[in-house]
């Protein structure tokens, strides 16, 4: 019995982390789907979101929801600006150049924040004061509950946005065929900006939730988180929104179970090992379709 409880606890942990990964993975996947760009800087958008919300709360004394809204707005703006300044001039360049630019943006953000706020981690205020819920012998903390619920709500909202609204349809059209979308009167540039804004906004929500669970903010916090979320996106099939959600939860569960039952040091290696397996066996991901190569 005790072992079952322990296992369930790990599963809940995994779902909590996984929902954060899923939110970040959504940003990766949306951007990749629309511009075929692996946005290496996405992980650092999380870090920026964390700092914005931190200063909104400690500096300006805002409540957590307002801080989150400001972080979302700030990150969305950052995403749009990054796209306009760094990625747009390279839209027709070889993949290698774009990838290296994305790495450059990531380095830039990390080092800018390193200079501004030093490398020492800043404590994040404890904001969620919701009592823990007992389900039988398992106690679920308020933070966990809020994280899971909030990310589920965000994902449903995103799904509705993409499927039901005109802008969402434009997004899907551009990711399918940008040229044809242009001919149908879709403003491709606006749609790409919007995608970056939505993806980065999700990263900011993930940032607030991540920091509530692990209350430390430092300039490098985004890189590992971003990498794992990217793995989640690849696992589910990059460019596919439901794939990112599934991948996020899968990676979260695998990581937390590895930490609990195998070795906490090797958890990262296991996650990367999964990435390698996925890429070797089914590079298109779980939900991906294999597309033939045109010569």
């Amino acid at each position, binding site marked *: 019995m005790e072992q079952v409880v322990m296992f369930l606890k790990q599963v809940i942990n995994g779902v909590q982390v996984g929902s954060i990964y899923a939110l970040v993975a959504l940003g990766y996947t949306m951007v990749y789907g629309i511009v075929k760009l*692996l946005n290496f800087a996405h992980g650092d958008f999380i870090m920026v979101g964390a700092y914005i919300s931190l200063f909104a709360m400690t500096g300006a004394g805002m409540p957590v929801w307002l801080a989150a809204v400001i972080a979302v707005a700030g990150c969305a703006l950052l995403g749009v600006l990054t796209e306009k300044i*760094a990625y747009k*001039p*390279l839209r027709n*360049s*070889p*993949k*290698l*150049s*774009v*990838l*290296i*630019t994305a*790495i*450059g*943006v*990531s*380095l*830039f953000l*990390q*080092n*800018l924040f*390193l*200079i501004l706020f030093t490398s020492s981690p800043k404590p994040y205020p404890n904001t969620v004061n919701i009592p823990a819920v007992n389900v039988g012998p398992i106690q679920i903390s308020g933070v966990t509950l809020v994280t899971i619920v909030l990310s589920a709500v965000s994902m449903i909202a995103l799904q509705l946005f993409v499927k039901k609204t005109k802008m969402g349809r434009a997004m899907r059209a551009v990711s399918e065929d940008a040229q044809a979308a242009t001919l149908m009167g879709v403003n491709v540039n606006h749609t790409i900006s919007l995608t970056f804004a939505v993806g980065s906004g999700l990263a900011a929500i993930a940032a607030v939730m991540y920091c509530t669970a692990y209350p430390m903010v430092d300039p490098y916090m985004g*890189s590992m988180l971003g*990498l794992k979320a*990217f*793995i989640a996106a*690849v696992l589910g099939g990059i460019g596919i929104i439901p794939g990112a959600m599934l991948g996020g939860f899968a990676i979260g569960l695998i990581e937390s179970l590895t930490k609990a039952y195998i*070795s906490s*040091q*090797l958890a*990262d*290696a296991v996650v*990367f*090992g999964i*990435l*390698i397996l996925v*890429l*070797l066996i089914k*590079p298109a991901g779980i939900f991906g379709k294999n597309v033939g*190569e045109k*010569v």
Partner: protein
Amino acid sequence: MKDTVKVPWKAYILNAFCTVLIFVALSGMIEAKVIDKYIQGIIMLVFVNIILAVSLNLTTGFLGQIALGHAGFMSIGAYTSAIITKAVKDLPDGSFLQSLPPQLIFGVALLAGGILAALFGILVGIPALRLKGDYLAIITLGFGEIIRVIMENLEITGGAQGLRSIPGYSTKYFGMCYWITILSIVILYMLVRSRHGRAIMAIREDDIASEAVGIPNTYYKVMAFSVAAFFAGIAGGIYAHYLRILGAKSFNFSRSIEIIVIVVLGGMGSMTGSIVAAIALTILPEALRSFSDYRMLAYSIALIVVMIFKPSGLFGRYEFSLMGCIDKILGKGKKRSKETAAEGSVK
């Protein structure tokens, strides 16, 4: 065709002469204490970065496959060679291995590190190189991280504490490191200019077309990848015996990024570019110590700006040729340029 190719002996002799000259100048200055320990250390890092950048250029510049796990191979070489030299040093006095000259042991250790790194290069390369572009970048990053995590958790590598008191052979045998660096450049340059090198570049230009004309793509991809890994291992060995401490975080993801920055800024497909960029990007931050906080910030901005305005890097695919340069000055450039095009820039 073969017998019409003229061997540019003059150029070989000139280049060899110049490398010897630089060596004599450097070792003379060390002897005369013009170069102190600190500057000597920087030069050592320049050597390490040159080998790393030139070898990564083979995969990224000439093969056209972006690899983000070079630090992983570097760490394999570093740990392997450090474990060997440490083991020999810790042997009881008077044993046979200890009576051998330490240069030999250092050399063998470096070679062993390089070979092990190359083996891992083959192991990683065979599955990874089935992928292209972004996916290859990510999978190499993944392998690099796995290698790092495993290295940090093995007992033989000292676990999280790392290896300590590695013999400081790199500083002691400065000349040897210099010649290893030169040799690495020469070998890689010859490889690129050979039949194999042309096959590698054909894959970069169009892999489907190269496959169609009968180039075994997979073979050449794995070969280039493992050769690059070999030299990364050698560089790691020199680095380990210079630093004398190997710890966690010595070979993380940002280390790989630093190497790729050098390659990209110098020019993908230009060995001259890699060498110049390696020298500049190692010396500049040391020279501008007071701005050292801003170093990585400047790197990243430079990276973005170069990609937007000159995606081929500073040197593009240009190779500096000493002989061609002299000919140009003497005004016989056009007549000889075809001959000298075949010869290289050793330095």
